[in-house]
């Protein structure tokens, strides 16, 4: 039969699933190691903690993957995450540098609007002014951090102990956004992660939007000749990325119950690490949602597992750096092997 294993290897779907499988195996391996040392790892309580820690990372990473798919990068997500929460908190609760307060819903809208403004500026500077997005978003990261500190006056906001106390329904509503616990103590936040995952999967793999992102990232010049709307799409991914960062910031505020000045660049780099571990190429044109999710799981699990093992936070940081490099390196090597198998398959097909 012509459909031998070698010709199957040329099939792109088969290749992609092989790579995803490798990542899944790595995750299982880490789980087995941690579990063998600390039986509490797979306990329901710890699994809940684990999932909870993935929410912001996962939501932002899904959108970041689209930015990276297009060959751009968004370093400002961590800062926008903090900005949206701080703006919401200051407007709602007062106490920052703003002399007035507004109702919760208006404050929420303003927080998200602020995120969208940041995304819009990222898009504008990258598309219109033609700056590299690395520079644009690095700048906006600092601008957003500075704005957060200015507006919030480096205060820590806690709705439940605020003076004056917001109306009861506002407190309930805000808590219900992400912090409230459902059955089995699962926080509402996790629903958002699941929804984001499904929506982004559809967007990436089942819409023309995702399909064209793939094309534009793979060969921008050919995309220009084919008259694909490259500029619009760039705006769209930067807006999406900032919007998801804003939503994640507000949800985490809701879950934690307070928000204060943070070092926000950490989230940006974790997000990018997760996307890259998930098999996306920083050159554009390569990246899947399932891969990104697995990257998020791997990172979250490492954080969690190392903490359980009692490794100090300094060593944790070192570990995560090494694992990021190793994961991407392994992916590169396996990609090379798979690729040469694919080429061999293509060649034998050509000769036949």
């Amino acid at each position, binding site marked *: 039969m012509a459909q031998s294993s070698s010709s199957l290897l040329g099939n792109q779907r088969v290749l992609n699933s092989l790579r995803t499988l490798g990542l899944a195996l790595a995750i299982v391996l880490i789980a087995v190691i941690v579990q063998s040392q600390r039986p509490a790892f797979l306990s329901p309580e710890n699994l809940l903690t684990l999932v909870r820690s993935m929410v912001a990372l996962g939501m932002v990473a899904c959108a970041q993957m689209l930015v990276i798919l297009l060959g751009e990068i968004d370093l400002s997500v961590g800062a926008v995450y903090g900005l949206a929460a701080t703006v919401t908190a200051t407007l709602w609760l007062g106490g920052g540098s703003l002399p007035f307060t507004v109702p919760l819903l208006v404050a929420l809208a303003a927080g998200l609007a602020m995120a969208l403004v940041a995304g819009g500026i990222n898009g504008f500077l990258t598309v219109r002014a033609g700056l590299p997005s690395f520079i644009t978003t690095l700048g906006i990261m600092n601008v957003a951090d500075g704005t957060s500190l200015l507006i919030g006056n480096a205060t820590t906001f806690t709705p439940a102990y605020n003076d004056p106390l917001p109306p009861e329904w506002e407190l309930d509503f805000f808590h219900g956004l992400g912090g409230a616990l459902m059955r089995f103590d699962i926080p509402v936040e996790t629903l958002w992660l699941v929804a984001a995952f499904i929506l982004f999967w559809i967007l990436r793999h089942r819409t023309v939007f995702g399909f064209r992102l793939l094309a534009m990232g793979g*060969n921008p*010049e050919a995309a220009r000749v084919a008259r694909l709307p490259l500029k619009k799409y760039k705006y769209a991914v930067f807006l999406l990325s900032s919007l998801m960062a804003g939503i994640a910031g507000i949800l985490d505020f809701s879950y934690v119950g307070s928000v204060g000045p943070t070092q926000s660049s950490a989230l940006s780099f974790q997000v990018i690490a997760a996307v890259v571990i998930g098999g996306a190429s920083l050159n554009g044109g390569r990246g899947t949602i399932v891969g990104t999710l697995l990257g998020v799981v791997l990172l979250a699990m490492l954080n969690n597992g190392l903490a359980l093992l009692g490794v100090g936070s300094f060593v944790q940081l070192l570990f995560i750096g090494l694992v990021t490099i190793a994961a991407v390196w392994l992916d590169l090597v396996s990609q090379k092997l798979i690729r040469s198998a694919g080429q061999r398959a293509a060649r034998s097909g050509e000769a036949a």
Partner: protein
Amino acid sequence: MIRLSGKAITKRYGATRALDGLDLDIASGEIVGIAGPNGAGKSTLTRMLAGEETADSGEITLTRGDTVVDEVWRRVAVVHQEPHIWPNMTVEQNLAVGREGRWFGDITPEPVSAKAVLERLGIAGFAHHELADLSLAVQQRVEIARAMLSDADVYLFDEPNSALTEEESEALFATMAELAGSGKIVLLITHRLNDFVRCCQRILVLRDGRIRCEIRGAEISETSIAAQLTPAETAEREALPASARTAPKADGAPLLKLQSCSDRFGAFRDISLDLAPGRVLALSGVEGSGARELAQAMGAFRPFRDRSGQTFTTLDQASVAYLAASRRDTVFRNLSVGDNLASRLAGRSLGRLPPFIDPAKIDALAARAIKRYRVKTGGSHAPITSLSGGNQQKVVLGAAMEQGTDIIVIEEPTRGVDISSKADIYELLRDFAAQGRAVVVFCTEVQEIFDVADDVVVLSHGRIVGRVDMAGIATIPELADLLASYEAV
């Protein structure tokens, strides 16, 4: 009835007039060839038809029956010389880009017509392969497939078969004839004069931005076109038979000895050959025969495997310079002509105190090289992108020759190069060999083998199936028959 017309179209870039009062009048149902030396305005015309440029004065109009089409480029499908495709996507996905149809769901091209086009181009088996894994020939056919699938009135083929073999080209021409037969306008731009003869009913010769003459029907022949392109030069070159110019067999030890070598990925097997000094060796074979891969291996661009399974490269035996087929992979587009010429050098040739470079020394080197390799340029500081394709190729070749290696391996030495530069390039290659070195070329054109080679090695299915000494060959048809007979085995 479709009609493509234009009157006195002009386009200037700074001081140069790319198009200078071009008149066009082309009706549906015919294949029209557009010939012209580099810089004649062909690519400007192409970009204009594709809607990437607008004319300074004059306008190209497209009429269907009595109605005038608004945006002409929407009705024009272009097959670009360098395929504009997506290496990170599968063949099938490539066909769907830009014409996805619906906004949600699994994005695939319209299955029936896509399958038909892929089958006709002989690449249906690769539908789910990623393009980065496939050869240039397949990529070029994907570009053609994209054009075929678009519902256009005008089909413009710009060097569509530069990576295709004779057989594949023949199939392409048949497809083009069908398009013309179904009432479309088909335009062909190529440097291969033979292709004009084979498929065009009318040829427009473009020179200095306007149409200098038109050749029709029975008057079309390689000589008649060549005479219009560069009147004085070509006639004398034509007469020289291969046997009269091949290098005498020199003694001397072979520069490279290969004994039952094969490729790591199975592209070729059982290769034994000696590369004699002073000779130009041509490797010939269809895409997938292993000839191209053998050239890359001889250029130390991919490893050989010997009988015992050990891998090695030709660098173990001799010094080798390798030039890839596409200028995208050989030209440093961000550098000047002079810097490109110096790009492969290091050490003393760039300055007196080696790790440091001396700009004056590079300038002197560049000035010498520009003269020696007959590069037509405004000077060594001109950007390489300001040169025509033929002159860029001379720069690339010059840079490799400056290295002074024993062997130069070059894939498709005159891809996208005009006639007069071609002759220069062949001469440069032969002069290089004459210094007791050797040149290996991978060729897709019989004409090219005839013009440059001393020896030919023919590959088929990864094995050497024939060897030709060009001293015994007098005419191109004789060579073509011989090569075809080897490949048929």
